[in-house]
């Protein structure tokens, strides 16, 4: 089996199953009555956390490619990114449809008064734009350079998601900081790699200023 076939026929379906596993897990928790005494809140948090986990997974593919030398990792980037958007849609829907029960007035008040919700929606809009422009057609239409520039916004969405999570929790809680810390590590890794590449290319020392 060629590498391409391996990815298409075995690994992609496997990743699909893994990406849907949180929904299966949720069904199990619901069936066993393990969604706490406040299932609406539980559902909303659960979906939000998975949106963030998949976003960070998508961002992990390029560093993984560099570390392992296996280019196949980048083939999963879009899939993971789209699943992040998928969970973000469910997360937002649970807020609109269950938590607020389509009370648009209250939703609007939340949006303008509660910064963490504003930040969350910002991150969601970025993800929506990136999802809409994720097809091969759109890459062609926008041109590779523009498309690349647009899709750099995924980092903004990542930090937005982490900030949204951190601000939602009371006090200084560790969990959202783990996510943010992981994102920072991924970025540092890319930056270091980028500097190294540039030095190799130009043969000069790394630029002193960023």
């Amino acid at each position, binding site marked *: 089996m060629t590498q391409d076939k391996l990815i298409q026929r075995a690994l992609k379906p496997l990743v699909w199953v893994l990406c849907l596993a949180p929904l299966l897990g949720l069904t199990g928790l619901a069936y066993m009555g393990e969604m*706490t*005494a*406040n299932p*609406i*809140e*539980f559902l909303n948090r659960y979906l939000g956390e998975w949106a963030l986990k998949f976003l960070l997974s998508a961002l992990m593919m390029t560093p993984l490619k560099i570390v392992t030398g296996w280019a196949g990792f980048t083939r999963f980037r879009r899939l993971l990114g789209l699943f992040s958007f998928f969970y973000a849609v469910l997360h937002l829907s649970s807020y609109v449809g269950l938590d607020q*029960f389509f009370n648009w007035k*209250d939703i609007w*008040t*939340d949006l303008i*008064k*509660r*910064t*963490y919700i504003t930040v969350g929606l910002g991150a969601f809009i970025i993800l929506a734009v990136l999802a809409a422009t994720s097809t091969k057609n759109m890459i062609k239409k926008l041109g590779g350079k523009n498309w690349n520039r647009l899709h750099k916004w995924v980092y903004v969405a990542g930090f937005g998601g982490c900030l949204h999570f951190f*601000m*939602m*929790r*009371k*006090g*200084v*809680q*560790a*969990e959202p900081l783990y996510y943010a810390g992981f994102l920072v590590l991924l970025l540092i890794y890319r930056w270091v790699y980028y500097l190294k590449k540039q030095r190799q290319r130009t043969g000069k020392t790394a630029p002193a200023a960023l």
Partner: protein
Amino acid sequence: MLIKMTKASDIKSSEITPKAIFDDRRQFLKTAAFSGLGFAAGSIAPSSFANEGRGKKLIGIEPSKWTQKSVGEKLTDYESVTSYNNFYEFGTGKQDPLTYSKDFSPKPWTVVVDGEVENPGTYSYEDLVNPHTLEDRVYRFRCVEAWSMVVPWVGIGLADMCKRFGPKNDAKYVAFETLHDPDRMYGQRSRVLEWPYREGLRMDEVMNPLSFMAVGLYGEELPNQNGAPIRLVTPWKYGFKSIKSIVRISFTKTQPPTSWNMSGPREYGFYSNVNPEKSHPRWSQAKERRIGEFLKRPSLMYNGYGEEVASMYVGMDLNKFY
């Protein structure tokens, strides 16, 4: 020598109703009526918690005027009250307190009473609680996170307890502290808040008949996750004011620092009275979700206890003193 001849009509000593029970006859009738009512109403009345039986039953509990009937709402089920908790000493997840407080054995327990009082000292739990008669009180409980419950607490009026310590005229506030013991309270190993957890009340709030020291709920000893063995309950304030697992009660001249106010002064004031009009940077306080219900309901000023507490805040700018 007088020889007592027993007549058949004489009352045998075994038939004499003990004085305590005779004195309690009205209580007995009330309880009996209550149980009957509870049975008829699908056992939701506070005296018919027979099916709970998870913890040690508390005995000698008197009813109070704060009954399920006076609240006029269904009690939140025992399962929810004891599995959905904010008690960061045992972790920040809602079910963490239940999970991580299993091995926390609260007794023996002592409480330090100090500051502006005639009778300072270290009181054992028994010294604190035994001189009082336990009461059943059904209160609404409103969390700042916009969820709420109706809980049947068991305990002692805070004013009654505090009067025993003999507050001096200089005592204007009372500060409370939770146990700080990271070995037994796993959540204290991370610095979510500055430990120990601190809370405080103004003296008139302490003396308000609503303020309550709970040692139990649903007729049983307080479960660890709910703040065993003794906690405060101030139902007209957001839940975080109702400090759990208390080890220190200090009578102070000045307003004491309180944990959430120290952590986020813009979000959490010293008073933290339930106020649907005062929007919070994180949650609208206009509505709340009663645990077990789907749609949110409007929140009530002072959580519906305005009649008892509003007079304490007359003339205060509630937007400033939130």
